[in-house]
């Protein structure tokens, strides 16, 4: 299968003498010095099952480091090629070769792309690659006499490719996924909460509108409050009048003392008593004042005149 057939194909070798310096889109084949590879036989069928075992399979066989892993099935059942590679090391090599990350189409292992070479191929001044026991290995040039130069012209890229974790050396991806998951859950909770709160606010607003039509209110609360104030005043005034009226009627007068006039005018009650002796005026006035009534009095010729503000 051919991928990105229009892209230029490059062999990435950290020991290369020359800088590649390309500005076009490229596909990269990694030198064996940039990864660790094993061919293993496992009692599993799929690559997915193998992936879970990869860190264990390389444990204690490769130097300590921050590795990513990859695997693909060999031609025989239950046989797999498994890889361990350091993203940072590959990225550093890419940067060293003046290749922009944005220009990289795909990255492949030499193992998957050079599996059909017959002779050793020289990749730099000191090293060659050749196949030994189905594994593409890197050997010093002097070990092998028959060697050709590396030619990528006839290479047809396989579907086995990797994606580098550009920031894997900076952050722990597992922790990031954990944090991101928590944040996403939090976002979800917030979205639900915002939706619920907004719905409640809308419901309350609708209920308020319903009150307007139910009680036949004016369109603005300003008008309604003004009308309410008007009726409140009337109500208070009427209640006060009735209360004061009952207090006045309950006054204990002497036989000679008579209420000759009672008059309500807007906010004033005027009362006239006849036959009241001077010393009795204070009794009548204080009896009303005790009830919290504001009274002004005038006395003339046994006539007591009271004025009460409502």
């Amino acid at each position, binding site marked *: 299968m051919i991928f990105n057939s229009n892209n230029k194909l490059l062999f990435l070798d950290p020991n290369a003498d020359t800088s590649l310096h390309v500005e076009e889109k490229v596909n990269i084949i990694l030198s064996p010095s940039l990864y660790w590879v094993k061919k293993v036989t496992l009692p599993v069928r799929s690559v997915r099952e193998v992936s879970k075992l990869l860190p264990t399979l390389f444990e204690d066989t490769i130097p300590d480091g921050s590795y990513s892993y990859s695997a693909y099935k060999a031609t025989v059942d239950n046989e797999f090629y498994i890889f361990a590679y350091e993203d940072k090391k590959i990225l550093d090599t890419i940067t060293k070769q003046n290749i922009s990350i944005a220009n990289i189409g795909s990255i492949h292992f030499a193992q998957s792309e050079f599996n059909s070479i017959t002779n050793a191929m020289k990749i730099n001044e000191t090293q060659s690659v050749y196949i030994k026991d189905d594994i593409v290995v890197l050997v010093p040039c002097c070990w092998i006499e028959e060697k050709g130069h590396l030619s990528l012209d006839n290479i047809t890229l396989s579907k086995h490719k990797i994606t580098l974790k550009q920031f894997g050396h900076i952050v722990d991806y597992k922790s990031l996924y954990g944090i*991101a998951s928590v944040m996403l859950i939090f976002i979800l909770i917030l979205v639900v909460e915002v939706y619920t*709160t*907004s719905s409640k*606010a809308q419901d309350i*607003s609708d209920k308020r509108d319903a009150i*307007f039509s139910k009680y036949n209110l004016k369109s603005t609360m300003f008008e309604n409050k003004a009308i309410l104030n008007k*009726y409140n005043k009337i109500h208070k005034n009427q209640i006060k009048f009735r209360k004061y009226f009952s207090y006045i009627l309950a006054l204990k007068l002497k036989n000679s003392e008579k209420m000759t*006039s009672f008059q*309500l005018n*807007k906010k004033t009650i005027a009362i006239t008593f006849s036959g009241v002796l001077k010393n009795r005026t204070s009794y009548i006035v204080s009896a009303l004042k005790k009830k919290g009534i504001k009274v002004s009095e005038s006395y003339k010729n046994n006539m007591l005149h009271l004025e009460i503000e409502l």
Partner: protein
Amino acid sequence: MNRINPIYALALLLVIILMLVYKLDSSKNELKDNILTYEATQKVAVKLSALKDTYANKTKTKKALKSILNNALLKSLDTKFKKTSLSISAKSINAKTLNFLMSKIINGSFIISSMKISRISDTNVELKMEIKW
């Protein structure tokens, strides 16, 4: 090969969270305001409705007044229904009639806008009263 820096992705999520927290805060404030406005509106509506029913229900007030004035004891009163008020007057009524009338008017929910009771003898009084609606 171009990948987004995961720190940027987390930062984006954080920005989204902050925006949502802000939005949630606004929504909660809106809800609070709506509840307060709703309660205030309901309070005004109930009070206004009750007061209007008591003091501004023309039909109900007129009907109640006519029912009182239909009493045989009050036939001697001069009554005059106007557009927004009722005038009651009597040159001379006795204490019994006055007591009956006053007990009905005072205990009813009528707007007594003016009233004048003048003693004319030991048993009789002159009365002028106006009730509005």
